[in-house]
């Protein structure tokens, strides 16, 4: 079925648009295959609002005159559009039929399943070209740039056809002394084939952060010699490594009943296991829904607001993610030991913790380029299932099982770090907000699909543009810079005391007056810094 067949009414005149904190506007509404376009012509000046249909999380329609007079004069309908970036709009559409048509088109077109029908495959801006390499870096390039890896680590192409681990990239970094056969064996012993691979090597002491999925020990306490050897090779001679298991000890035990499990002390003698409980999947998604709901009710008393904020548990998730990341960093930097991080699947919290740890540890990941490279390496190439996790955001009524705002949680945690260390990160809040928006609906192909294999199959690299590349264009990059950036080589240890963690107002109160004042303050900071630079 052609996309255009979903469109029964393409144009409606005299539509009234209501947005928060703006006067209502009248204009023309258009529905295209991928966009909702509202344009308002007042005298000479025209004003347009273009919304990707994919950005629409939920729509609610209310139609007046339901009793039998569909074409009666004055019949009209109202559509409330709730976007994934948390903006809420209202459209008053004259004519009931038009209203229902528009609503059903939006419903159908905003929930397309097929990747190649999505807008990134049609987005062709004049300033970008599809030629040239896609993305910022590859595993091989990363390895080449990271000299400290050369000695003990190698790039393995064992997964070049994605048969060993469907969700891993074609190349991964593993200990030099472990050959591909051992990797294949180890992969069979790990859920989804996600055998332990290198995530980060610390510049000052050469200790590493590895990540994987849970071992499939099962109820019978199965062992895998190659997996044990692989981990032994990671610590190579030093007496201890830490396994940070992102489940409680009890959950890890229970996982054995369904074929999963954990690394037992007797089999991995030089590894010390620490359990930290992290919520996952549906629970986190529901937190987001509750939080957004709490933020959108302006009538709450302070008590009710605080109780709703508490009840959403969102900040608790932020708290545990940052605490565990801090723990990982403490192991690596302070105790000088290598760490393996995993939960069960190793595609969500695992990535969250390992990438946060790198931001705390590694000055290189605190630059704009470094941060985007980190996201590319640790989230996109590492196989975070974006398509499943970000299919819906906080407003949707469709409760699918796979949604989970892990990535948004990462951005929130990074924001907390940024707020605590306003000088240490090269990028600004604007970059985080842009990413939070793009991950749910984008013109670019970066966040499409669930892993490299799927992206290859769909031809994402050949047919879409890369978001990160476009964000790094010099003229665009400036808005993402932190004017106060002052690089430091040291680890930035975030405080995880509850007093130090705050609601990310820039994100969750984005469409309120509150954000407006903050924006003015941001501009003021820039103008002071610019003035200063001019003088210098």
């Amino acid at each position, binding site marked *: 079925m052609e996309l255009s067949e979903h469109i029964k009414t393409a144009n409606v005149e005299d539509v009234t648009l209501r947005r928060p904190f703006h006067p209502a506007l009248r204009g023309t509404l258009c529905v295209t295959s991928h966009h909702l376009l509202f344009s308002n012509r007042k005298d000479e000046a025209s004003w347009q609002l273009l919304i990707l249909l994919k950005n629409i999380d939920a729509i609610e329609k209310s139609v007046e005159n339901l009793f039998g007079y569909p074409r009666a004069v004055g019949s009209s309908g109202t559509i409330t559009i709730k976007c994934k970036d948390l903006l809420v709009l209202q459209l008053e559409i004259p004519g009931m039929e038009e209203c229902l048509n528009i609503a059903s088109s939006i419903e159908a077109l905003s929930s397309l399943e097929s990747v190649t029908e999505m807008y990134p495959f049609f987005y062709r801006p004049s300033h970008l070209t599809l030629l040239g390499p896609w993305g910022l870096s590859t595993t091989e390039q990363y390895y080449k740039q990271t000299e400290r890896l050369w000695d003990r680590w190698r790039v393995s192409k064992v997964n070049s056809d994605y048969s060993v681990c469907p969700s891993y990239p074609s190349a991964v970094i593993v200990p030099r002394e472990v050959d591909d056969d051992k990797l294949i064996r180890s992969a069979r012993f790990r859920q989804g084939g996600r055998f332990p691979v290198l995530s980060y090597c610390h510049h000052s002491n050469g200790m590493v952060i590895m990540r994987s999925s849970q071992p499939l020990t099962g109820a019978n306490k199965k062992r895998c010699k190659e997996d044990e050897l692989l981990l032994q090779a990671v610590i190579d001679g030093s007496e*201890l490594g830490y396994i940070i298991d992102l489940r409680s000890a009890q959950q890890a035990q229970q996982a054995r009943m369904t074929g999963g499990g954990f690394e037992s002390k007797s089999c991995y003698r030089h590894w010390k296991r*620490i359990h930290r409980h992290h919520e996952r999947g549906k629970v986190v998604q529901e937190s987001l829904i509750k939080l957004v709901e*709490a933020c959108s009710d302006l009538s*709450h*008393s*302070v*008590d*009710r*607001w*605080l*109780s709703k*904020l*508490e009840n959403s*548990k969102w900040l*608790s998730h*932020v*708290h545990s993610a940052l*605490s565990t990341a*801090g*723990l990982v*960093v*403490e192991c690596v*930097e*302070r*105790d000088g030991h290598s760490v393996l991080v995993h939960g069960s699947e190793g595609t969500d919290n695992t990535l969250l913790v390992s990438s946060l740890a790198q931001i705390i540890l590694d000055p290189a990941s605190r630059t704009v380029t470094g941060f985007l490279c980190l996201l590319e390496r640790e989230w996109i190439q590492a196989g975070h299932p974006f398509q499943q996790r970000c299919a819906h955001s906080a407003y949707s009524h469709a409760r699918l099982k796979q949604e989970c705002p892990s990535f948004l949680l990462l951005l929130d945690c990074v924001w907390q770090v940024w*707020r*605590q*260390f*306003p*000088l*240490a990160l090269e990028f600004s809040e604007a970059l985080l907000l842009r990413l939070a928006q793009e991950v749910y609906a984008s013109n670019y192909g970066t966040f499409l699909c669930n892993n490299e294999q799927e992206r290859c199959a769909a031809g994402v690299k050949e047919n879409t543009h890369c978001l990160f590349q476009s964000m790094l264009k010099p003229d665009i990059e400036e808005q993402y810079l932190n004017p*106060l950036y*002052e690089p*430091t080589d*040291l*680890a*930035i*240890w*975030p*405080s*995880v*005391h*509850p*007093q*130090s963690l*705050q*609601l990310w107002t820039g994100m969750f*109160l984005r469409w*309120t007056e*509150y954000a407006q*004042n903050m924006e*003015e*303050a941001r501009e*003021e*900071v820039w103008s*002071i*810094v610019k003035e*200063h630079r001019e*003088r*210098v």
Partner: protein
Amino acid sequence: MEHIRTPKVENVHMIDRLTPRKSTAGTLYLSSTHTIFVENSEARKETWVLHSLVYNVERLPTNPSGSPLLIRCKNFHVYRLLIPQEKDCLDVLASLTRLSRPECYGELFCFSFNPNLDKELREKAWGFIDLKAEFSRMGIPSNLWHVTAANHEYRLCETYPSELFVPKSAFPAVIVGSAKFRSRGRLPVLSYFHRDTSASICRSSQPLSGFSARSADDEQMLHAIMKSNPVSELMYVVDTRPKLNAMANRATGKGYENEDHYTNIKLQFVGIENIHVMRSSQQKLVDVGELPAPSMSDFLWGLENSGWLKHIKAVLDAGVFIAKAVAEDGVSVLVHCSDGWDRTAQACSLASVLLDPYYRTIKGLMVLIEKDWVSFGHKFSHRYAHLDGDPKEVSPVMDQFLECVWQLMQQFPCAFEFNERFLIQLHTHIYSCQYGNFIGNCQKERRDLRLQERTHSLWPHLWENRAEYTNPLYRTDHSQTQGVLKPLTTAYCFKFWKGMYGHADKSVASHQSPADCLNAVREESQQLEEELSAHQERLAQLKEKKTSGGRKKTNKLSERVRRPIPIESKLSSPLDYFTATRSEKHSPSFTLPLELAAPPKNGDPDDLSTCSDFESGVADLSSHSSSAGDDTKDHDSDEAVKSNT
């Protein structure tokens, strides 16, 4: 001095609550004004705690390592000491308990505090804030308002200032009659006049209306106030109490205005709770801050349960209501509560901050506090327990006002000339009794105490150091600075004030302050500008002389340009994400809950800048006697230290 049982205790440990292993050994000294802890370490870091800032001292059960002593301060700092001998501990406890509770004004620190100003300067300092000038800034006296001598020598009302501004149309008999009909004689007088609309904010205490009483004079007085705003036919009476409380007062012959008896008044209750509710709410909030290792839920639940932010919202709501009436509706407002010196002061001064950009400047806020709080008889000595007295009189009224201003600063980062540090410094000095400004409960008392002759004024001292209290984002031409502030009062706008209550978590965060960085940038810009022009001049000269000096100069210049780099020790000091009891480096025990945020090992960056001042040790106590309150030498207190050393 007679209260000090033991002036010096050795081998005392200052315990860090979050990381007990980071405790430091040192010597404890008791002076007549301060408790001083000097570390045995190389740096001999000193911690000064002013006796008048001590809220209470508590001795915990003796354990094998010694007797723990807990010193809680009125600015929410807590010090934990471990004293080896129980006897010493008891002595320190007894001495401190007595020293921290002066029994008469004469014992207060301000009477012994001597920053070596000569008499002339001291007198000049007291004239720094001139309320007459402030009223004339508002355009008062005018053809409708004038000053009345009715309260000369405090004949009419003991707790009011001697000079009162009233409508010209109110005859002396009306003034006297109105005072008689108001609780403690606190009749309706002008607090703020809004030039743009001619609407005014007046304040008073509750009327003695009971169930049926009325006073023609009081009714005329209100009518005169309404008429002083020529364009309006209406006036609001804002009763800042919850309606139930106001009704209950009627049974004791007080209460609120009967709308039928007064012409064209509209009565509005705004529901700020009384001082007792506020006192216990703040205590709960402080307890939340002291929780040993709270989870996110513990913290949020505790915050909710304290009700503190709810009360802050109520106070701000009152200010917003009044500001809106005055600026948007152009209607004059009379504000009162019961006595008209707590909630009334909060509501009037907040409304003024919202209405008038002047009160958002450093000088302006001083003027406002002097006017609405000091001169109108806010009972500072009672509310902030300057003397050992009735604990039921104590309440954080001013704390709430300062916090409301802080909450506004969060919403309007560019609107205020001062920064958070200024508010915290004000808070400390309201309690510290170091300066004479906040001693006593009303103007008359202060006059009788001859404070201007015997003590010093805080204002010029703050003014001299204003660079430290300046918000870099403030710009007089900014839209947030102009006109009336219209804050959101949605629940999510109210935040926990970490700078004030969050001393448990003195972590890295506060040391990377964007404001400080920006201030540094600004200062540097100015310096650069100056240097540049100086160099240009010299270059011009040198060019003529054709020497090689020029190049050197430019090198120097580029060195200068580098911005202050965050103190390294700061960033590198990790928090403990493991546990509290890790005996050895390589054998952590992971069974205990996560231990949260510990202060950095190496102290504040400020220490680096100030510790040199302290190398001399305690020997010269006199030179330090001026140090503000207690200082662990963090931002809010080291200012005083620097200026006096």
